[in-house]
Structure formats: structure tokens, C-alpha cells
């Protein structure tokens, strides 16, 4: 799983089967090198701590924009949480209270 910040939601009028009814969020992963040692990272991490990449994940926990989330990436995680019909590989599995890098 990786840490990331929710930067927005995705909507689409035409979607593949299995997607309608699912909330899709855009997540920017947190770069490890940008995590300050000894400082807790909570909601709304600064922009320079985030990677430029955007991962689109299915959200079953209703994460708000700006929240730090844990994204599981893998087809089996998808199977277990949202089911095989959903054509995605990334799923939000937890909303993070705090993450801390200690060394």
C-alpha cells in the first residue's frame, strides 16, 4: 500500500461496466524523500511532498479532498474490496490519521 493525498474526485458520463455507483478519487502519492523525519504527516500534506503522478482509486470510505489515504494497488485487493467487476487496480483501504517517518 502507499500513502497519498486525495486531490479530487472523478466523474464521467460514460463509464465501463462495473464502475457506475463507485466513487473514483484522484490520489497523488507521497514521496518518501519529502517526508520530514520526526514530523507527523497528517491531512493536507504540502504540494512538494507529493509525486506528480496521479493514481485513480476506487473509494469506499468516503475520503474528503485533502485527506491522507492508504491506497492498495493490486488486482486481489480490488477483488476483495470492491469486487472483480470493477475495472480498476487501486483501492482506498484506509483514511490515515497520521504517518510518521522516524529515520
Amino acid at each position: 500500500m502507499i500513502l497519498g493525498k486525495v486531490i479530487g474526485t472523478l466523474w464521467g458520463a460514460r463509464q465501463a461496466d462495473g464502475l457506475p455507483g463507485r466513487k473514483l478519487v484522484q490520489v497523488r502519492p507521497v514521496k518518501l524523500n519529502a517526508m520530514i523525519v520526526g514530523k507527523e504527516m497528517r491531512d493536507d500534506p504540502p504540494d512538494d511532498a507529493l509525486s506528480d503522478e496521479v493514481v485513480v482509486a476506487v473509494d469506499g470510505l468516503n475520503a474528503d479532498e485533502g485527506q491522507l489515504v492508504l491506497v492498495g494497488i493490486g488486482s486481489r485487493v480490488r477483488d476483495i474490496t470492491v469486487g472483480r467487476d470493477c475495472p480498476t487496480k487501486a483501492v482506498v483501504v484506509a483514511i490515515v490519521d497520521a504517518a510518521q517517518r522516524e529515520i
Partner: protein
Amino acid sequence: MILGRVIGQVWATKKNPYLLGQKLMLVRPIAWYNPDVDTGHIVCVDQVGAEVGQDVVVCLGAPARWKLGDIRFPVEAAIAAIVDSVEVAGNAHCFKDGLQPHGMEAQ
């Protein structure tokens, strides 16, 4: 499975029910690792009791769920073992607590 160093911890209250009570550790992969999204970190479930600073072997994919004992865990990374030492191509690379991890090239 990959080699990594535990560098921190993640706490979450609101999460998938199967993750309740599970310890989440922030791990930095030491050697070659080819993730879908390259962020330099991987968050793993820990049932072995690894502490920050220890080197660990992380189990990825389906075996991570087998290791945790239930295939319904929504995880793809679990800490499987705590490393004492690593030997590469006849040269010993010691990864005891506190030492900087090296790359996997033979010296």
C-alpha cells in the same frame, strides 16, 4: 518478497474492517523493487513485531494475505521476517540496526 528498512509508522482509524487492529509500518525498499507506482515507500502490515530501524523481508502480493492468515485482508504487503544479516555473492553485507543500507552490488 523484497528487502526493506522500517522507517516509520502509519496510524489510521477509519479503514477497511479487516485492517482493524493491524499495525501499519512505513518501509523503504533497500534493493531493486519494481512497483506500479514508484514513491520510494511501501506501507506494510506487521504481525512480526518489527521496530523502526530494523531491516525486514516484506511479502508482496497474494502470499501477504496467506501469511496474515485470511485471504480477505485488503493488503498486498506484509512484513514476513526481521533480517539479521544479508550475504550477497560471497560478500557479507551486515544490516544490523543503525547501519546504512547498501545497494546490492557485490564489493
